[in-house]
């Protein structure tokens, strides 16, 4: 059903795409042909008019200067016939050939006529035409299809001379020209349309393939891709864009699956332990004992809400909705306070913390930075075997404030290092929820900075958090 619709839509679009340019092309080329026709036709008429005027002058000369004797009529007639032979080679005076007539009207004399018989229609036509001397004009003669170009000359010593010429050859040439022009025009228009239609059709066929592929992609199968083609035209780019989009959607869906699985998993264990604690509390008889169980349950609930909160924060960061409330912060003071807070916890684990903090001012969201750096310190407290060295440094490097946390612990497990910043990625022995570093990365990104996690050449882990300082002077919200 949808495929039929596509076909219809495709052909109508192809017709539209090919049709309008063809109409424009047809109109344009028709105008060009018409102009060409008018120029050639005008040229041909001009040529015959020139001939007519010249011959009429010669004949007028002859008729004026020839003595009026008995041979006068014969002589003028001969000359006129000679002239007519110049343009009408055959003596056969029938239609379809160039035809010339000559008429001289002399008062008190028989008119001299050279031309096809009978001459009456010609004489009548001339009389009705009201010709202006010296100016060739078209005269329609009864029974003759082609009009005659006639020039009237009065200079022949009181004689009126009419010379008429029907340029059949020229007209035929014009007709042939018109016919071939029309044919050429029709052929080019048709060919143009055909080419345009085929190109449009083929292009649209690729669009239809994209449409069909995309419409086949369901929620359960996102692996299908649109054929991209080898060229780099717009359609190929469209396909490529579609495929990149599908890649991203597939990645997001995959991530969502992982997220849902991990959240479900991470929620299951606290829920189980909470439920267990409360069940035990119910069956306890001594009040002191159930208090302990209820307290355990609340601890479990706290862990649960921590997972929920961080997951929500990360979801917001992903959606670009992590709102920053920037203020100018003394970053060294912020780090120092956190180190103070964590110092007793470090002492418990017999870690030695050395801090090298340069005073660095930065425009950032204090609350988010606090939580991010607390996450990094939580990491050290939670994962480092006891009695290690931790180096925390803060310095300005170029445009960035760089916080470095190094330790001489076992470093990141190899399989973890690459994905340490992804959510729910955590070490096998980790009791955390695997969101800590992902949150740090999200906070860094929201500030235009980045996090790098690596192993030190000398052993141990190093975490670099860089934040741009450039906004210190510009933004203050």
């Amino acid at each position: 059903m949808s495929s039929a619709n596509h076909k219809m839509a495709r052909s109508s679009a192809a017709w539209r795409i090919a049709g309008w340019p063809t109409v424009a092309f047809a109109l344009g080329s028709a105008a060009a042909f018409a102009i060409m026709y008018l120029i050639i036709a005008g040229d041909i008429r001009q040529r015959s008019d020139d001939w007519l005027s010249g011959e009429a002058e010669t004949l007028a000369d002859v008729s004026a200067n020839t003595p009026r004797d008995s041979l006068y009529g014969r002589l003028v007639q001969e000359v006129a016939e000679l002239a007519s032979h110049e343009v009408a080679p055959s003596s056969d005076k029938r239609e379809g050939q160039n035809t010339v007539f000559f008429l001289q009207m002399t008062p008190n004399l028989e008119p001299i006529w050279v031309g096809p018989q009978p001459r009456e229609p010609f004489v009548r036509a001339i009389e009705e035409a009201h010709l202006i001397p010296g100016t060739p004009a078209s005269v329609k003669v009864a029974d003759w299809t082609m009009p005659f170009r006639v020039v009237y000359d009065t200079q022949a010593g009181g004689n009126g001379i009419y010379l008429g010429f029907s340029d059949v050859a020229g007209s035929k040439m014009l007709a042939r020209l018109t016919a071939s022009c029309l044919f050429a025009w029709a052929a080019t228009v048709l060919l143009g349309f055909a080419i345009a239609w085929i190109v449009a059709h083929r292009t649209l066929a690729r669009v239809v393939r994209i449409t069909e592929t995309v419409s086949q992609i369901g929620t359960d199968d996102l692996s299908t891709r649109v054929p991209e083609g080898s060229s780099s035209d717009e359609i190929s780019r469209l396909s490529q864009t579609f495929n990149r989009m599908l890649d991203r959607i597939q990645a997001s869906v995959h991530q969502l699956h992982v997220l849902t699985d991990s959240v479900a998993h991470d929620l299951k264990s606290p829920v189980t332990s909470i439920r267990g604690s409360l069940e035990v509390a119910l069956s306890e008889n001594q009040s002191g004992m159930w208090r302990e169980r209820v307290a355990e349950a609340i601890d479990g609930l706290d862990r649960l809400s921590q997972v929920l909160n961080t997951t929500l924060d990360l979801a917001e960061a992903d959606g670009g909705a992590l709102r920053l409330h920037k203020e100018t912060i003394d970053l060294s003071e912020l780090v120092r306070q956190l180190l103070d807070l964590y110092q007793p916890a470090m002492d418990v684990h017999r870690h030695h913390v050395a801090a090298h903090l340069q005073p660095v001012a930065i425009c950032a969201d204090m609350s988010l930075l606090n939580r991010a750096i607390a996450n990094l310190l939580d990491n050290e407290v939670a994962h480092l075997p006891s009695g290690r060295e931790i180096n925390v440094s803060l310095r300005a490097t170029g445009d960035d404030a760089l916080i470095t946390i190094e330790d001489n612990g076992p470093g990141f497990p190899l399989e973890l290092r690459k994905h340490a910043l992804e959510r729910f990625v955590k070490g096998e022995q980790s009791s955390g929820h695997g969101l800590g570093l992902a949150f740090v990365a999200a906070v860094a990104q929201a500030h235009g900075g980045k996090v790098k996690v690596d192993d030190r050449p000398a052993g141990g882990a190093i975490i670099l958090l860089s934040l741009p300082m450039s906004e210190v002077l510009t933004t203050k919200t």
Partner: protein
Amino acid sequence: MEASAQLTGTRKKVRLLVVEDDTAIREFLSRALTESGYQVDAARDGETTLAIVADKVYDAFILDLGLPDMDGLDLIARCRAQGHTAPVLILSARRSVDERVRGLEQGGDDYLTKPFAFAELLARLRNLLRRSSPAAAESTRLRVRDLELDLIRREARRGDTLLQLTTQEFALLEYLCRNAGRVVTRTMILDQVWRMRIDPATNVVDVQIYRLRNKVDLGFQHSLIHTIRGVGYVIRES
């Protein structure tokens, strides 16, 4: 819970209005706040609230932002327009709180994100009520049994013994003593002593308290700092 809602010694109970559409939370808050000594009314939506506040005066509001019929902040604005100046403790479901809510907080009100510890709600409520009532004379000394804090000299004594406390430890002890007899949560400690709204994955606060307790209670007959499992800490006479 401690019956400590009476402020400045008056016998008149503090009146609260809880506006929350979730029945379970509304009923829990009503019950728990009543047990804590407050006089509590409850409303489940904005219209009901406006009808109630039309002819009643409250000392504080506890308001859920996500009401079914109107935006919580609009409701606050309409209450303010009716002349109610009582502070508002906002309950929000979202963790990263709306910018406008933060602005409101600066105007003297406060917010809590769900889920929250009830002890923390009580503490913030007390804070708001204290802020809105005439300031009591600021004491320069705090005393819990034989523990005495000199807030001017920043010294703490247990009996005759001068306790060797760091600045941070003194601040922590001061906060506990200011809330003597009342449970404070870890979140509140971080917020009020370290000025951080963070949620550490490790037991940093517990270790801080442990160290403070070693200095305050170790070697003395009566322990003052107590752990309330699942809630937080309290400093009290016994």
